[in-house]
């Protein structure tokens, strides 16, 4: 009983420890000659480490260009775009907050893993179109209005600690995971983790996509809640816990992050669920008020080219979106999330409120009463 | 020889008749086609000079009737038309020769001579009997170096007798060929001409033999030779 109480309080504490998202001071990469006249400014939500290889390869192609790459959270990227815009445009139903946005120069390219927020920017007229042979070669789901493009795919997977769980025991599908969660032996009690949907853009999007595709999504979250699931707003946070052994399994974890750690020697295993594997994309758009849009175009075309995609795969461990070059990339259970107006639905305030309420209800409430 | 000129143009006919008569032929003239055709039915001529354009009966019709009767009298046609078709037509109908107006008299005479030659089978106008040379074109007879003086009628008589070389030529025939309708010939005219001719032919290879009651025969000591020497 006491152990359970301690576990529960730890879980609670862990939950409480989760702080609401606030604007981070963006980590910045500055590559290229300092006196270069061509300066490409990229704001992105991707970890600088992940993008370093790509940026270096791009720089090798255009040695005279300087690239300034700043890492920011997806919400910040969105809010900044709204604040920056001086020309009249639709006022977003989501209140912009970041004040630091004004201080920074306008980016030429915004790359975010938050597909819905990027789509909303495009819908509300914040992006400018770009057409090229590379963009035309993209599959339909990977671009919308020629204003937002998927540059690489990320599978949402189960990630588990190999010490805590043998490969053969790891669940292969959501049904198996649900069964494992409902197992009276409680193997995953307090050991399951996932995104904090309320505070993670990508987490929210993955959760809403699950709600659409999986009839058992609600049951899954409820089951996770019953097992005192731990939620984290950041992929790294989640993976740290799994690596340390605090958690056995993470649900909806970005594959590339896990792969990087595995390459560094972490005791992690990855399962692509075979009922369906959600593939989210990192999407890029060129803001309408970009100062050097032609440089952004150049970068986009590079990233979408065969060389760029190949570098992406190698350096960032992302899936290629050029299905015309690699037809096998999205076969089987892979389900890419498509860019389009559908993504706007879950951005609706009321809808979001409803969803979060339901989700919190499923995961949060139960977690509180997990210890019995 | 006895020639019939059928031509309706007075002056042309006049010229023709006068010319042919000068040469020594016995020439009759008709200007009406129908009458001319009738004349041809009952009178024989050695040659007919026939104009195509005639009143009442055209030259071609006269010719056709002539040939239909089987009459082989040589016919020389004259016409003002120049069509080759007319010529061919005329020759086909039975003309022996054809001459277009206006013509040169010399040509006319030569053609007449050629037509008159035919029955005899002579190929040219020069006939020789040994030293005797008869020039049909010039209408002269020479024996050796000496030219025999033969007036027109006598020459014509010789011509007539030559045609019937070796056979009897009756007095009627001679008379018919020697005199035209209008010529006045006495009953003894022929004997007179024969006598004169006989005298002139004395010594030549040709001699005239009288066949009592029948007529006269011209004999040649040597067979005739024609062409140049």
């Amino acid at each position, binding site marked *: 009983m006491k152990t359970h109480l301690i576990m529960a309080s730890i879980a609670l504490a862990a939950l409480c420890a989760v702080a609401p998202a606030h604007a981070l001071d963006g980590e910045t990469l500055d590559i290229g000659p300092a006196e270069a006249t061509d300066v490409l400014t990229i704001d992105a939500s991707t970890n600088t480490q992940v993008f370093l290889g790509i940026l270096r390869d791009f720089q090798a192609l255009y040695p005279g260009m300087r690239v300034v790459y700043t890492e920011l959270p997806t919400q910040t990227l969105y809010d900044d775009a709204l604040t920056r815009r001086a020309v009249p445009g639709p006022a977003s139903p989501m209140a912009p907050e970041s004040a630091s946005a004004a201080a920074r120069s306008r980016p030429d390219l915004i790359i975010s893993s938050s597909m819905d927020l990027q789509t909303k920017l*495009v819908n509300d007229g914040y992006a400018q179109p770009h057409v090229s042979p590379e963009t035309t070669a993209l599959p339909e789901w990977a671009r919308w209005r020629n204003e937002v493009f998927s540059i690489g795919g990320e599978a949402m997977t189960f990630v588990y600690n190999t010490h805590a769980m043998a490969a053969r025991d790891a669940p292969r599908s959501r049904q198996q995971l649900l069964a494992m969660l409902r197992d009276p032996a409680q193997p995953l009690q307090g050991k399951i983790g996932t995104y904090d949907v309320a505070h993670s853009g990508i987490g929210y999007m993955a959760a809403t996509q699950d709600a659409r595709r999986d009839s058992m999504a609600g049951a899954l979250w409820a089951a996770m809640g019953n097992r005192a699931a731990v939620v984290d707003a950041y992929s790294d946070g989640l993976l740290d816990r799994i690596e340390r052994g605090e958690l056995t399994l993470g649900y909806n974890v970005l594959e590339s992050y896990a792969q990087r750690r595995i390459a560094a020697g972490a005791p992690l295993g990855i399962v692509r669920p075979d009922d369906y594997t959600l593939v989210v994309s990192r999407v890029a758009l060129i803001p309408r008020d970009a100062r050097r849009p032609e440089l952004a175009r150049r970068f986009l075309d590079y990233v979408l080219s065969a060389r760029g995609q190949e570098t992406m795969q190698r350096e960032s461990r992302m899936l290629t979106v050029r299905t015309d070059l690699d037809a096998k990339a999205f076969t089987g259970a892979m389900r890419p999330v498509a860019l389009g*107006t*559908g993504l706007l*639905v879950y951005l609706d305030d009321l809808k979001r409120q*409803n969803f979060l309420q339901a989700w919190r209800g499923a995961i949060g409430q139960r977690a509180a009463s997990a210890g019995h | 020889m006895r020639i019939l000129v059928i031509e309706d143009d007075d002056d*042309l006919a*006049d*010229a023709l008749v006068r010319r042919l008569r000068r040469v020594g032929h016995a020439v009759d003239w008709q200007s009406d086609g129908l009458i001319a055709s009738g004349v041809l039915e009952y009178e024989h001529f050695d040659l007919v000079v026939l104009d195509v354009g005639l009143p009442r009966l055209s030259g071609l019709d006269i010719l056709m009737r002539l040939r239909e009767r089987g009459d082989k009298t040589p016919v020389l046609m004259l016409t*003002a038309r120049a069509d080759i078709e007319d010529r061919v037509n005329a020759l086909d109908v039975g003309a022996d020769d054809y001459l277009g107006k206006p013509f040169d*008299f010399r040509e006319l005479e030569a053609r007449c001579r050629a037509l008159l030659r035919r029955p005899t089978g002579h190929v040219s106008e020069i006939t020789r009997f040994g030293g005797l040379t008869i020039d049909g074109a010039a209408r002269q007879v020479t024996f050796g170096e000496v030219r025999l003086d033969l007036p027109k009628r006598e020459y014509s008589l010789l011509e007539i007798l030559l045609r019937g070389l070796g056979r009897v030529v009756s007095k009627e025939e001679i008379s018919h060929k020697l005199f035209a309708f209008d010529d006045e010939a006495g009953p003894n005219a022929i004997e007179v001409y024969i006598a004169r001719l006989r005298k002139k032919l004395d010594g030549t290879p040709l001699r005239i033999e009288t066949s009592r009651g029948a007529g006269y025969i011209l004999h040649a000591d040597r067979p005739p030779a024609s062409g140049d020497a």
Partner: protein
Amino acid sequence: MREFPTLARWSIRRRLLVPLCALFIAAMLVLYVAARGYGRQAADTSYDHLLQASVLSMTDSLQLVQGTWHMDMPYAALEVLSLAANDRVFYRVTDGAGRVVTGYPDLPAPPRLTADDPQPALFDAAYSGELVRFAVLRHEIAGPEANAVAIVQVGQTRLARDALATDIVWRATLIIGILTLAVLALVWVGVHRSLRPVARVERELLTRQASALSPIESPVPRELVQLVAALNGFMARLAGNLDTLRVFIADAAHQLRTPLAALRAQVQVALDEDDPAEQRRSLIAVDRNAARLTRLVNQLLSDASVNHRSSLQRFERLDAVALVRDALQDVVPQADPHPDVIWHCALAHAPLQGDALMLREAVKNLIDNALKHGSPDRTPVVVTLERDDESWRLTIDDQGPGIPPAQAQTIFDRFVRGAGTRAGGAGLGLSIVRRVVEGHRGTIVLSNRVEGGLRVSVRLPAA
């Protein structure tokens, strides 16, 4: 050559194609305008249905909870609009008081809304820098205290529907365009094939000899039958003319050759002749034939000149009295022995409209004829000119044999000579005269005089 108006010179192809072209271009324009209207309408209708479906779907998910509106937007509400792949979407839900429940707060206001309209109303308004199509529905449900109203508005940019409208329009126009081209091509081919019989006739005529005037053999369609018949008729007349001409030339040649032959023959005889009397005879004959030739040539030339003149029609004001006198002067030989020609004319002047040369030739011919045939023993020929009502009457009386009644008409034809005339003339005279008289709208009558002889009566209208 008359100048025909340019329009008359158009080819049949052009005549058909130009109006057809114009018609089709006009039709295309009309259809384009109609198609544009229809296209917009059709595109709007189809996409409007989606917009309305979206509004209805959102309205369906509205719930009144404790006096406030709640909406759990169905995925389909915006997913259905993704049929227009590149269009942006905007939406807003407000309550009865105008407070925004959710969505884009600054959407343009809708026009008057009636409560009982079951279907969402549609309108266009500018938003976010573009023209946006909106559907709006006023939704009212009964609440605990009072009725609650919600206004649901969904909008979508017009890219897809404009593209569809354009597509419809251009397809329609393309079809019409293709149809036009097809029709024009068909007409072109049709005309070409229809004109083949003409080409055939043309070829037949081209390959003909100049003298071949037989009727055209090629079969022709009904429309051309009359033309071909007219052409055949024309050719027949031409052939007739040519035959007449040929006969004329042949006869003329014949006529000329005979006196020439006589001339030549007589000369040759004269050259051979020693007898002066015979020579003289020949010379007289030469003179006679030379005169014949002269007369003949004159007549032929007169005929030719009359022919030529009659096609020129140079009429002027003349005095018939002077004219006849001149003619008499030309024709009647002055040297002895000269024939007796008595000239009666009481008039000082006899004005008329005519061609001096032609009239003179005609009169000369008549007098010449009278002298030649009507004065066998130098009996006088009487020429009278007098007034007869509105005309001048010229009468030539002779005491010759006259003409047999049977020949009264044919005597006027070329080369027909009166009975008893022999190689005297070519027989052209009277045909020339008739042509001249008719050309002057006059009349000529031949009659036998009671006292014997021929009377020629010519009437010409006075000026």
